[in-house]
């Protein structure tokens, strides 16, 4: 959906544009599944990581200016990580790293943020704080968050809209209804991997 894999059939549209000639990449932020799985020896400070979020909308050969610095500072403040700006990213805890990667996504000033299994390998307490942070961002910044996850229980609890995908779209509606009806069975009926896509509006 974010252009990393080519569709086997059909076409994908983002903001009404076909993905093949999609230009507005800055409108979406992306927090990958591998976010907390990066090279811990990589020499980058928290600030440098969040600055990467600005690179996409900058052209080649253009350095970051004062305005970019301001956006980086604001993004880090939004996830309450500004105090850690000079620490090495590899030295932080998993939950803190996650916040930094969200700040990087925010720094691109997107309209939608895609989160691909962001809570894989994170303990329950950190997960809770993580969802609290997402809720805050959703409310305060009026940001659409799209979450891809296998954890259906959390998804039905924390989201406002739910789409279940197993090869094809099975369900797309209010999360409460999903449990009431036997969609879950349908979803797990096949042994293939199950993705739940949930929108928060």
């Amino acid at each position, binding site marked *: 959906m974010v252009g*990393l894999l080519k569709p086997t059939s059909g076409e994908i549209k983002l903001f009404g544009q076909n993905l093949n000639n999609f230009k507005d990449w800055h409108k979406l932020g992306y927090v990958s599944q*591998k976010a907390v799985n990066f090279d811990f020896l990589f*020499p980058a*400070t928290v600030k440098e990581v969040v600055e*990467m979020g600005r690179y996409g909308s900058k052209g080649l050969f253009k350095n970051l200016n004062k305005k970019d610095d301001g956006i980086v500072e604001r993004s880090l403040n939004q996830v309450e990580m500004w105090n850690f700006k000079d620490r090495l990213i590899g030295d932080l805890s998993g939950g803190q790293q996650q916040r930094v990667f969200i700040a990087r996504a925010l720094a691109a000033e997107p309209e939608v943020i895609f989160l691909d299994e962001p809570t894989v390998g994170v303990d329950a307490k950190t997960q809770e704080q993580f969802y609290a942070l997402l809720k805050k961002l959703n409310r305060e910044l009026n940001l659409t968050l799209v979450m891809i996850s296998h954890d259906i229980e959390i998804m039905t609890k924390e989201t406002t809209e739910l789409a279940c995908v197993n090869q094809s779209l099975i369900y797309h509606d209010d999360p409460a209804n999903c449990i009431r009806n036997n969609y879950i069975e349908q979803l797990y009926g096949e042994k293939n991997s199950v993705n739940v896509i949930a929108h928060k509006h």
Partner: protein
Amino acid sequence: MGSLFHYDFIIRALEAGLLIGAIAPVIGIFLVLRRYSLIADTLSHVSLAGVAVGLLIKVNPLITAIIASTVSSVVIDKLRTSKKIYGETALSIFLSGSLAMAIILIGLAHGFNVDIFSYLFGSIVTVKNTDLYIISILSAIIIALLSLFFKELIYISFDEESAQVSGIKVKTLNTFFIILAAAMIAIAIPIIGILLISALLVLPTVTALQYKKSFKATLLIAEIISLFSVMSGLIISFYLNLSPGGTIVLLMLGIFCLTLFYKNFSVTKN
């Protein structure tokens, strides 16, 4: 020191060393962080085949080395990304393949055995005037292009997937980078020698990484180590009549060991 600058060849070697010592860490830091270190080794062996061709057909070997290295870097990159064969398999095929080709070519023209030795291990007398021109021009091109997409390369090295989603042309930049690395490897041959180039690229960065600093600070430390080792290595090898490549790499290795020792010692003390 006085006698050092009486010889034109040592001034040329120092000038070339200054350029190569300065560029090596900028290429090296990305090679190390992207786990591409072995590419340097492969491309330097490909360069040897290029040198052999040059010596055989009596063209400046540096030029044929640059052509061989850059062309095969693109082919290796294509093979790696095609996923038809494993990345490291592509590297070993090219490494042994080009070495085989180099040996056959050297055998065909038995005349240049002495020359080949200086290309293998580097020499301060190999740098000719035309070589210095080629090294200067290519260094300028490499630095100009690298600064053009420096920040994008940092992002790609850190997180290729997110870099792509943010709109950075990852594939194109990867190819560009590998070509620049290939050119850098080829121009380092006269001084460092084919067999030691990967140490020149890898050691300063690996040492700098031990200090656990920001990206910019790490690059700066790598630059200092690289320039210091290359320049003092050239001067020492001139006075003691040693191989410059060997001297430079041993200096780098010494700094690396000292850093490791110092870092571990200060950690246990705390």
